[in-house]
């Protein structure tokens, strides 16, 4: 445990000095500051922040995560020559990346929100959902990134694959959903659509936040069915566990690959 903490501390130190993380934090700071100062309408700001959160966080997490492991290959080899368990090293690397990424997201959005002095407390439910889903996106997409870069020795291939997977979750999946909706429009689709949402963490987070906003009324009957499902304890438990499964499964597969990998 001591060694794990040491590795995490070293990694955080290392990443904090990298340009990437500073730019990432500054990006959140500036966009949320800009949005908040330009608009008095907090729900509108939150919708824009949601858009940014659900597009930028998965993208940065998956790309940065992939590059991070490739760049740290020498360090990994060096550490493996020491009497350190591979599991400890793996989780050290993982947490050493996830913690600063999530931290800079939370800092970047919450500071302008608090400093603005606007009545954001009224919308605390949406804000909690926003932060939770942002942190979950970081955790999930860094685990996927780790899996990709451990499996692929080729950097270019790995990077290409992570961009493609991000594209699948952020864009193509919704296209597929739209096709399904179009194709089966004569059938009651609501329950099936709820099922489909669990297979895409980005969509799931988006719906969870939208249902907390008043845009939900536009969805009519579908929205009502969704509200009814996602506002019960079961709905919240199911969505949280789905997000947890999305974070753990790629991480564990990545771990088992890491344990067997011949560096």
């Amino acid at each position, binding site marked *: 445990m001591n060694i794990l903490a040491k590795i995490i501390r070293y990694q955080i130190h290392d990443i904090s000095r990298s340009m990437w993380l500073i730019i990432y934090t500054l990006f959140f700071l500036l966009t949320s500051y800009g949005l908040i100062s330009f608009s008095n309408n907090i729900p509108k700001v939150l919708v824009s922040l949601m858009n940014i959160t659900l597009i930028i966080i998965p993208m940065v997490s998956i790309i940065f995560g992939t590059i991070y492991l490739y760049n740290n290959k020498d360090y990994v080899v060096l550490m493996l020559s020491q009497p350190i368990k591979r599991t400890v090293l793996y989780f050290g690397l993982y947490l050493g990346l996830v913690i600063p990424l999530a931290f800079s997201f939370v800092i970047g959005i919450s500071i302008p929100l608090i400093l603005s002095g606007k009545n954001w407390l009224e919308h605390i439910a949406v804000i909690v959902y926003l932060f939770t889903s942002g942190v979950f996106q970081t955790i999930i997409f860094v685990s996927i990134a780790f899996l990709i870069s451990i499996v692929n020795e080729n950097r270019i291939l790995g990077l290409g694959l992570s961009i493609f997977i991000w594209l699948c979750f952020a*864009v193509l999946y*919704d296209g597929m959903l739209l096709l399904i909706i179009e194709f089966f429009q004569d059938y009651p689709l609501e329950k099936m659509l709820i099922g489909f949402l669990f297979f895409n963490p980005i969509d799931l987070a988006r719906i969870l936040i939208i249902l907390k906003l008043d845009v939900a009324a536009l969805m009519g*009957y579908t929205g009502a069915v969704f509200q009814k499902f996602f506002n019960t304890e079961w709905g919240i438990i199911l969505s949280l566990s789905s997000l947890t499964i999305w974070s753990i499964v790629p991480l564990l597969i990545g771990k088992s690959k890491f344990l067997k990998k011949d560096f």
Partner: protein
Amino acid sequence: MLKRNGTKNIALLITLILIFFQSNLYTKAIKVGSNHKVKTITAALLFAVNGDTLLIASGIYKEGPIAIRKSITIVGINNPIISGDGKYEIFLVEANNVKITGLVFREAGLNYIKDNAAIKLNNVKNCVISSNKFENNFFGIYLAKSQNCIIDGNIISANHKKETQSGNGIHLWYCKNIIIKNNTIRGHRDGIYMEFVRNSNIHNNFAEKNIRYGLHFMFSDSCSYSNNHFQINGAGAAVMYSHNVEMKNNRFEKNWGSASYGLLLKDIYDSKISNNIFYKNSCGIYFEGCNRITFTKNDLIENGWAVRLMSNSMENKFSENNFISNSFDIATNSTKNYNYFDGNHWSEYKGYDLNKDGIGDVPFRPVKLFSFISERIRPSLILIRSLFIEIVNIAETVFPTFTPEALLDNNPKMKRI
């Protein structure tokens, strides 16, 4: 002798004329109240004659249903309360020229067969109902087959929970030339309800938190509605099957819900809707089967859909309106366009104005692909705010293939009108 007789006759005639006029011009005032000789309204009505005034002192009057069949004026002094005890209709007016003012009506009972109201005017002319309060009645003011009446400055409220157990605040059926002004209506089924009404004028009313519609009219031609304010009603305002309607300077706001509308128009022809404000409704204004409506100088701000235009609506003109921060500006289920959009301001407009004449140089297409798809297949709205949808919308704006190509504003204004 003859001369003297003549003077006598003339004197007699004058006296007779004076007596005759006195009964008409100098009518008597009857005081009603527990401290007066006449204790009840029913008793006062028995010996009142046309033109009398009943002055009702403060107190609570529970007299069952009261029928008014004489042209009298009823004035409440210090807000006397007249109660229907939750069972009866309170006033039934069946005479012309009745004026009722300053009373408080409470608890006209629920009755589905008789439609009990606090005041029901049946087949009358020239009546005035003003400055009364209505609390928790089934129906508030009910006019049937009446003409030239004025309903002014009443405060009508109820706290019904269910649509089926609640009547309308002001209800008009087969009426002509009615003026409804300065009334406040809360918590009824419909705030103002009109069916088969002609040439009436509804202005400066405020309808809030009614269970169904703030304003609801059908088959009511040539009526005008101005400076009214409708907010937080269950489903907004709904108007149907009418011609020559004029709606000006009204405010429709915060009608938010999955089946709510700022203003729902069905089968409305040749009408004018101008200078209204539609703010924060889930659907600002909905057109179904509406033809030849001029829709000008309205503000549509922060609605879910600003305008939903069904394909059976034709030759409507939309000009000089402000469409600002709506989730969807225009939604339609038609691939063709038979309506005109010209010179509106759209906050979504991303064009430029090189010659600085205030009019954008590139036409604006208010129907996005997503609003078109979601109008046809409602469940697709779960993809709202998805990155995919944004990309598809941009692609469609550049090369329109699905959305009605002719539905565009050729002269979009750069600045808010």
